[in-house]
């Protein structure tokens, strides 16, 4: 079908050179602009979900809940030493008690913690792969031999609502993309029907001389392809400029809040393919619209 783009010069002239419809390239430019922005949002979200999710899924916290402070500290050190030699554990970071108190003080008050409440000892560990149930169970068993009151918290457990939110946003982005493509296809269909009416006389003459539906369809799909390519490139350039400006603002806002919220390298390739996809879609719709309309006449 795409080969029909390269029609011989004399065949191109059968309907007047120029655009299918005056406003069509601009409609496609707007649609491509919105599609590229929606796709970019989807790619950034997916990247953030993948990066953040993958990092957090490898994080596990060991809590040692022992009332006796000396025993608690001893158990923490023993467990930390054991974990350092454990296969599959890439990083072991005991959290200093002062840091634990600092984390709890906004809720419990620093005086109360020091005097009355025993706080657990924490060890942050990073695994080489996302933690699964069997790995956690095996690890917990080994830890409890050294610290019977120890408890393991996988970060993935509190990540679940966040993952659900990310998935919902991705689905929403996908839905918006589909709607935009549907709107583009409908616009193309309307433009082609209008162009067919404009050139009905020429098409009828071609038919009476033995022209086929496919010959007529190729003429319209080529013109639509040119319109779509022009509109697609304009829309892509504008959207890329917006994405670039936004990425500058994201960088300026700091990375702690927006960890992983960046466009992956392959994202730009996907975005660059959108104008071509829009052109392909426009050609396909043009071809089907023309052939379907011509079938209604003898």
């Amino acid at each position, binding site marked *: 079908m795409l080969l029909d783009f390269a029609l011989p010069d004399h*065949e191109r002239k059968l309907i007047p050179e120029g655009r299918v419809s005056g406003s069509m390239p601009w409609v496609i430019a707007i649609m491509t602009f919105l599609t590229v922005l929606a796709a970019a949002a989807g790619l950034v979200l997916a990247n953030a979900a993948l990066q953040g999710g993958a990092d957090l899924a490898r994080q596990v916290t060991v809590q040692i809940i022992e009332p006796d402070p000396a025993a608690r500290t001893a158990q923490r050190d023993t467990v930390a030493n054991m974990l350092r030699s454990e296969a599959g554990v890439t990083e072991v970071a005991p959290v200093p008690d002062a840091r634990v108190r600092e984390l709890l003080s906004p809720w419990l008050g620093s005086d109360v913690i020091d005097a009355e409440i025993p706080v657990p000892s924490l060890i942050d560990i990073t695994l080489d792969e996302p933690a699964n149930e069997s790995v956690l169970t095996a690890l917990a068993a080994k830890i409890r031999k050294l610290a019977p009151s120890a408890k393991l918290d996988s970060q993935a457990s509190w990540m679940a609502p966040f993952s659900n939110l990310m998935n919902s946003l991705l689905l929403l982005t996908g839905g918006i993309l589909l709607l935009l493509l549907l709107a583009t296809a409908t616009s193309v269909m309307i433009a082609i029907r209008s162009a067919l009416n404009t050139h009905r006389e020429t098409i009828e*003459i071609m038919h009476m001389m033995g022209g086929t539906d496919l010959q007529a369809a190729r003429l319209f799909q080529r013109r639509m392809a040119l319109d779509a390519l022009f509109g697609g490139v304009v829309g892509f350039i504008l959207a890329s400029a917006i994405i670039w400006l936004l990425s500058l603002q994201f960088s300026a806002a700091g990375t702690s809040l927006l960890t992983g919220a960046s466009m992956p390298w392959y994202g730009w390739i996907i975005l660059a393919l959108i104008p071509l996809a829009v052109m392909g879609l426009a050609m396909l719709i043009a071809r089907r619209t023309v052939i379907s309309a011509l079938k209604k006449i003898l």
Partner: protein
Amino acid sequence: MPSVRAMQSVVEFDNVGLRYGTGSETLTDLTFKLYPGSFYFLTGASGAGKTSLLKLLYLAHRPSRGAIQMFGEDAVTLPRDRLPGFRRRIGVVFQDFRLVEHLSTFDNIALPLRISGIQEKDIKGPVTEMLNWIGLAERAEARPATLSGGEQQRVAIARAVIGRPEVLVADEPTGNVDPEMAKRLLQLFAALNKLGTTIVVATHDIHLLQEIEGSQMMRLDKGRLSDPTGSLKNPPKPLILKS
């Protein structure tokens, strides 16, 4: 023409009727055969159904009833995707010319060849020759809107004959040209006819019959062939010409 009679017909109508919508029949009970290499004039008053009959001949319509055989095949039930192949064997001169407005004279004449997929290198020669023949070589690049009615008619005729069709159907092809040009165009038809093309010319001017030796007349009267057997079997008589 006994030798022609022995040949297989190129077109055969059997009890054909044509009705537009729910109105009365425009064409009724048409039964006739057209033979290869024959020349027919189709006459009749305005509204007699000449253009409708031509539309059936160039496959712009299917009949409401009856059977039509073209080139040995049933044209009534012919699948739509085979129509282009049949239409390429038929040349048409429309009454209103139907030239493509945005194409030059040259490109209009070359249109049937290009539609048939003839290579560009094989198009220039025949089209230029045809332009010379119809006296419009100087206007090869002119658009139809800038041509006179007679010039447009000549372009329409050139376009219809350029592909050497097996059947040529012409609706009032000499209506807008002077007598001298009308004679030249008829000579063109006659030359094509000698090469084997079956020609059907719808005209009010029955005197044209004198110009083509051996031509036959089909006369339509209110959608019926007034003498569907006699007029087709015999060459036109002087009596008919006088009427």
